[in-house]
């Protein structure tokens, strides 16, 4: 792992979490430094979103220590969230509002003046090519347009730390290129990006560091080059399959297609 300058932005020490008898996180140790783009990957149910929710204070009752932006979460204050931007996976949004109203609202909650939030929101939306629908209701938007609103909402207050859960979902190829470039440039400005996704090609390309979570533990941690050097072969997708011990995709696919084509009529 490359040592970076400055204080750790995120510091997890032996973080454990369980829902009843279900142990989701079984001891996570992780330190993240400014300017890193962390690709946080793992199979469904590995505990990725639980980790992010814990760091955002959406879930409590964990074991171990969590420090975000030098602030220990155990003391319960919400002020540290003012320096965080978040794009959730399930795009929960007040969609009867227009983008202008929603973005102004978000900006205000982060302490911006309404007119500043509105101006900045308009500026960012225009760059995404959405000035025409800025005053339309969000529930009339396509998936990609919603995603752009979520991205803008997470960046309005110029946060130092970004949590992104599948931030590219629904975006067209051109927008994907823009967003990838935005992330790279934000990281170059010293912002930290914590990025979880299931699309391995993207993670492989944009992450400066990849953390793989498997069954509640960190199974791999390092840059893509470092992961390959550890003896894993091929693309990140293959490394992912190797490390999670999954090799039967061809067989399952064949049986699936066979079942699709069975005729009951």
């Amino acid at each position, binding site marked *: 792992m490359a040592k970076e300058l400055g204080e750790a932005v995120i510091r997890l020490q032996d973080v454990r979490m369980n829902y009843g008898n279900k142990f989701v996180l079984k001891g996570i140790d992780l330190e993240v430094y400014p300017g890193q783009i962390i690709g946080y990957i793992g199979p469904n149910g590995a505990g990725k979103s639980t980790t992010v929710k814990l760091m955002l204070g959406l879930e409590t009752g964990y074991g171990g220590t969590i420090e975000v932006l030098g602030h220990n979460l155990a003391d*319960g204050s919400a002020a540290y969230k003012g320096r965080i931007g978040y794009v959730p996976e*399930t795009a*929960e*949004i007040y969609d*009867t509002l227009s983008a202008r109203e929603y973005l102004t*609202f978000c900006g205000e*909650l982060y302490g911006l003046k309404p007119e500043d939030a509105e101006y900045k929101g308009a500026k960012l939306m225009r760059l995404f090519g959405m000035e025409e629908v800025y005053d339309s209701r969000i529930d009339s938007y396509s998936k990609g347009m919603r995603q752009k609103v979520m991205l803008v909402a997470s960046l309005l207050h110029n946060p130092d730390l970004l949590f992104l859960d599948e931030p590219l979902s629904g975006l067209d190829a051109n927008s994907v290129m823009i967003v990838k470039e935005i992330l790279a440039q934000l990281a170059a400005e010293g912002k930290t990006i914590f990025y979880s996704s299931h699309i391995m090609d993207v993670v492989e390309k944009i992450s400066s560091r990849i953390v793989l979570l498997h069954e509640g533990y960190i199974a791999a941690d390092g840059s893509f080059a470092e992961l390959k050097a550890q003896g894993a072969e091929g693309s990140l997708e293959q490394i992912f399959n190797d490390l999670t011990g999954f090799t039967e995709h061809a067989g399952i696919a064949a049986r699936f297609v066979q079942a699709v084509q069975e005729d009951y009529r």
Partner: protein
Amino acid sequence: MEVFVLKLLDRFSGMFRRAGIDYRALRTIVRIKLTMDGRKPNGVLEAIGKSKKPSADKPEKSPFAVNWLYVLMSLAMIPFLFLNDILAGMSFVFTLLMFFQGTAMISDFSSVMLDTRDRPILRTKPVDGRTLGMAKTVHIIVYLFLLTASLVTLPLVAAFIFKGAAAGLVFLLEIMLVTGLDISLTAAVYYAVLRLWDGERLKDMINYIQIVLAIGLMIGYQIMIRMFDFSTLGAGFEPGGWWLLAPPVWFGAPFRLLQGGGGIAYAFAACALLLPLLSMLLYVRMLPQFEQQVQKLTQGGGAGKRRSAFRPLELIGDLLIRSPRERAFYRFACAMMGKEREFKLKVYPSVGFSMVVPFIFMASQLKEGLDSLSAVWGLMLYGTGLAIPTLLTLLSFSSRHKAAWIYSTSPMGESGAVHRGAVLASLIKLFLPVFAVAAVVFLLLFGKAFVPDLIAVFLSLLLFTVVCYLILPRKLPFSEPFPAGSSSQNGLQVFLLLVILTAFGGIHFGIRAAGWPYSVWIFSAVLIGLNYVAWKYGFRGSSDVKAASAD
């Protein structure tokens, strides 16, 4: 109006700050919530993008509109101010008030209190649990006050004019106290349930508790009203100690004190002041913990249960319906009605209540003894039909209304099949059991001679269902969002249907009164024929899905 509410709120900003609340965030959240309430959620077609360009300002009926039905009802309260015994009169007024507030809290504001959507959006920003909880509370209070205002403005004015300024001020203060009490009591019940259960089980329990509370309120209301036997009211009403269990009486007591009364009324008046204040204090204290518990609602449950192989409901459907597509919708509707919690919450209480309606009609007669009950009273069974318009109105709502795109993308053809399948399902799954219970009680009351009438009532109600379908606006089942705030809808049509329902009873009564031999049997035979025609052709009107959901 929105601006007015916020201005009013600003007056209390100091109080909020002292309670450790981020007033700026609170105000922003409340403002945006009020804006959203004024917006009509988009229907299916707009969501898929087929319709005209939607704009941000598409106001629904303003959430601040006066509820004229309540204003009308409030007129009925005014005479109680002038009862000889003001304690009894005001207790009665507060019974009404607590009933309406309680019902509104459970059916309309539970979703605000238990909203899990706020959490990912607001708690990821620098907003703490206490502030979010308070914002939700203010949001509820605004509406509860508006609802209450429709209900009490006229009586309040009457109190000021005829009973003096002191009585008016006491009344005003008590209205605030009772509102606080209602909110904190509801929150306390939810808090207990949230503490006790987990996951899916928790959601089911909340649903059951809501249904039980709603039915309990209706019955409690009926009991309270009957407790005050009007003939004895003039003589003065001396509540015993056990009346302390009835909160409306607390609020009646201070008025007797004003008139120079004393004794036990002091104890009641103390309750009226102290218990609401105590409950509100506790409520504000517990807000962060409450918010913490609400998050449990987002947790998924374990593996689902597979239904047992024996499904009598589906067998009935298979017997009655031949078209495979219609059967599919029948089963789908059955499953949705059994699973959708919000739907159950809105439907079960009103359907359950309809079972009680005939007995309420008969109550005065029943007091005279069973023997005085002539067979004509059996026609009160028509009262159960009150559930049918509600049932059909609610059938078009779902908390997942956007999933209705499936109607437009699947090869469906005539929407008549969808409607008939769903209407039949609601009738068999929800109405039939309730009707059966009432019918059994009626058979016990009236004996074997009631059988022909029972059959005729049942057939009439079947026909009445088709009439309801034809008169109420036709919307695809589960394709619209539940309306926010007050759930009263289609007022005019429902009123018309009540007249028609009464007409059915009237015709039945006339045929019985005519006294021809076998007249009721012949009536039934005619009804069978009419039912056949109505159910066969009545659902053909709406030719395709687009026409049906366009309105």
